[in-house]
């Protein structure tokens, strides 16, 4: 925004109807023909989990999965991906159940401030969908386009490895702590809870 010379903006682009499948749901939006996918997703579709970090394709915060590939939505015209299947971070979880990659990021400290997290999650998810036993090198290459300033990446790699184990079926998915207990009164409602191992 530096400068005082007045340069008139280019004439406003024509409007067009854009449709795509975002997180499994068909959406239709009236967009300008030169709209950036990131803007459409954030301002019109309302998936605010897609983050804007740099607008230059350098930070990876705006990564989304388009037809199976992790791509940067800030470097993508919405028109280019009309009709595609787009997954944002909101589409990773199934209802109240976190995807393995999400619960592992929470569990292993893969997310600190959390701003870069959606981008990392989607880059990692795209990797794990293709390859559920990635090597260290493959993990590094999958997330090389994502910058994280908090974690130093080490715990992110740990999280992705843990999620890969779940994908391979070698580990149990993490149960969310707040899952209500199926039977809150196993011994009847008037039984006091006792120190474990202590005879009643």
């Amino acid at each position: 925004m530096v400068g005082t010379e007045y340069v008139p903006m280019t004439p406003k682009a024509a409007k067009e109807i854009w449709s795509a499948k975002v997180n499994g749901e068909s959406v239709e939006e009236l967009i300008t023909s030169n709209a950036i996918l990131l803007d459409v997703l954030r301002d019109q579709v309302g998936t605010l989990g897609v983050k804007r970090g740099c607008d230059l394709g350098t930070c990876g915060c705006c990564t989304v999965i388009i037809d199976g590939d992790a791509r940067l939505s800030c470097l993508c015209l919405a028109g280019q991906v009309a009709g595609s299947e787009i997954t944002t971070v909101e589409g990773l979880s199934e209802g109240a159940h976190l995807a393995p990659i999400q619960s592992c990021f929470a569990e292993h400290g893969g997310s600190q401030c959390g701003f870069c997290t959606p981008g990392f999650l989607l880059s990692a998810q795209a990797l794990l969908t293709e390859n559920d036993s990635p090597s260290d090198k493959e993990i590094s290459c999958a997330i090389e386009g994502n910058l994280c300033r908090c974690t130093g990446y080490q715990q992110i790699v740990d999280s992705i490895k843990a999620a890969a184990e779940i994908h391979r079926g070698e580990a149990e998915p993490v149960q969310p702590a707040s899952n209500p207990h199926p039977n809150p009164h196993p011994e009847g409602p008037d039984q006091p809870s006792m120190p474990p191992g202590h005879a009643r």
Partner: protein
Amino acid sequence: MSAGYRQQPNSARKDGKRVAGKQVFPPPGSGGSDPVMKERDLNFIPESVGGKEPQPAGSHIHDRIRTGTVIGKPLPLVDSNAKVTGQAWYGDDVRLANESIGKILRSPHHYAKIISIDTSKVEALPGVIAVATGADSPHSFGVLPVTKDEHAMAVEKVRHMGDLVACVSAVDEATAIEALGLFEIEWELLEPVFDPKKGLEDHDDPIHWRGKYHLAKTNVQKRVFQEFGDRSLVENPFSSSHGKWTMAGVHHGFTEPHAVVAHWDPNGRLQLYTPQQVPHYTHRALSTVLDVPMHQINVIRTFVGGGFGGKSDPFPHEMCAAILARKSGRPVRITFDREEVYWINRGRHPSNIEVKMTADDEGRISGFDIDALIDGGGFASFGHVTSYYNGVLATAPYELGSFHYTGARVWTNKPASGAMRGHGAVNTRCAVEVGLDEMAEEMNVDPIDLRLANLLPPHSRTITGFRITSNGMREALERVREGSNWDEKFRKLPLGKGIGIGCGFFISGSGLPIHWDPNRFPHATVHIQVDMDGGVTVHTGAADIGQGSTTAVAQVVSEVLALPIEMIHVRSHESDTSPVDLGSYSSRVTFMNANAAIRAALDIREKLLDAAWDILGYHPNTLIINDRRIYYKHDPAIGVSYLQALHKAQEDKGALISSGSYRSPPMGGVHKGAAAGLAPAYSFSAYVAEVDVDIELGLIKCTNVWAAHDCGKALNPLAVKGQIIGSCHMGLGQVLSEKMVYGRTGHLQNANLLEYKIPSIHEMPHVEPIIVESSDPEGPFGAKEAGEGPLLPILPAVVNAVYDAIGIRYNDLPLTPDIIFKGVEKKRKKLKLEEATELPSPRFTHGPKSIELQKSLMKRSQEHKKRDLARQKTEDTSPYVNGVLFGFDPNIPLEDQVEGWRMATEPDPEQLAELGLAGRAWLKKEQRQMESEK
């Protein structure tokens, strides 16, 4: 009731007040979702109260309130589910109905007077809603009360390229951007200053004018002189080092650009949503700038997408949004693009640092001179403090014979520097640690042994009078030495491979708050309220910027009340509901907020135990509080559920609400600047870094880091490790690649993440985090900070490792390939070698004298180790001040027993001639002195 269950005793209490009758127990699983009470986890209950948790550093005052619930266990952050689902709401995610988009017009000139601004064309543009200029906000503000030199928008002149000139809000972003081009501004260009050295000279138009306190007509914002100790020790040194450093400015590089949403609600109150580390200072500044009392403003901290100090100033764009929203009556959202983030900056100061050190023939550090000229950019920000920190935080953990510091911070026409992780301490720490390495090289002794033989013990005072309590420096050094296999590698690796050591020392919470006067106002306050069904809501103003302060507060409450952490809800977003808190800076949150939270939780716990006493008839001292149940120590069958005690307490005393606060103890000396660097506790760290240097390409690859940090007690090891590894990442960026590049014309050339090189995953070494627990006597459960201190040692560790690899000392940061290459070529030509790959690798060249010295150092460090252990466990409580190593008596003031022991905050007239670069600021006189001379 099933068999075997014993009812409460039917006896009356001794005071006869109450008879404990038969009680119908409420359903099990009272509060929380798990019906079965969890066993007391003895592994997380300290030895001193009958648990199994080892306490090498001795017992702690909080041991008796440990319940083994969460403290010391690796826990995910309590808000991590919001972050992994995309539901965390950051600044730009706040979307209010009927919002308008604000944009800021930034200065195209480095330094210029604004003659006039014509906004008529802007206002005429369809779609523009409101326009504001400097005339709308005459009041100045700033984070420090002594240096309020910022305005929402430039009032008289712009001070750097990108400085705010005007702002506009419009129906959409495109219109707002178009409107920015329609301002008609008449400028009068002024002569800009870019070089901090020029800032020391007189200038026709100093960037700011401080009236009678202004230093001649220079651009010096703050000058510092500090001298402690016996200067005679410096004469005839056995060994010495001298480093002249140039360190580039670096930026925090947080991933979330600044964003703000302002909205004046129908009652005329301002609701301001902003990702702020320090919402309270923004609150104050808004009140001043908008002329509105603080209670008419609600500052809502959104999730913060990384702060690192870069979101701790009150920012002009926050004022702009509020002004535009007030003018238009519509919510205004302003989001920065990445370039604007660099214009507002507040990153680490570009510094010119000179460090001279001397050691005597016993390997004691006799002289320690620092001269730091730091480039503050256009505004003061935290600079007043930074100029002190550059000197005083470099002294410990070493025992020094003398300390001499001259510092100056100058204004230049560049984006303002400010606080960044490791505030003020990082650059000088690097220079000092490399200086020590040089001295060890000259004396032919092991640098770790040199350090180990010169450490201050726990419970001692540094040369500048800081009170050190717990001190895990020795253990940190020993553990990285062992972990890295140091003795097998140092000075033994082939050319191109090297290993280096660095130490760190940082404050754990600033001892004096910035704003409070009188200073007895608490630093942190936490309120707790308990719901009917047992849920606990904690109100705190602590700003979670990703470091996990919300988790830390939830954890301590959970631990004290022995409740599952899911039952603790921390509310910290709104200034309306949270008690005043000074925010997340100077690594204060864990120490101060957790301490306040413990006090508040203890109040609730006491009320619950009293209620249990009433029901059971057993004194609280004999009751154990465990997971949602309180029971008699000697017979766990006798007890009440948490909910039962809670209801009893609520029946007797009404709603269960408590408040706890923390204020730091009185500390420090009386000299000018004594308050800078004071802290209730200090963290210590030691890193060993291993590097591969491609000697032909000049590329450095850091391969391994062993990172030991003394955080007192790791409340949450997962978070502490995350902080340590993250600090390594940020420090590596500064030492290897990050640099704010200012061109010949003063223009910032790399205001984007493409050319500003933050390490990606490929540049990250493997980091082995090592947690050292020294159990601080005043920390919450013994904890100290872990957020900033771990950054300091990585820089010198890498620089020293590069020397070990190729035998060349570098004094310019970052160590980019061109700098490495230049150094290699210079040395190759000097040694008349054909190929750079023939350079000699540095090796020990032991002589009889150095072997003797090495042995005496090792002997001394063994003796000191015993001394430290006794002091850490408070078996030895004798006073210890800096200087005992030199044979002084700690019970007599040093001035009285040592001839020539000096403590000065202003130079003597004869010293003026010898001062270093920054010291030259002392050659100038303040305006008031000049006036009085006339």
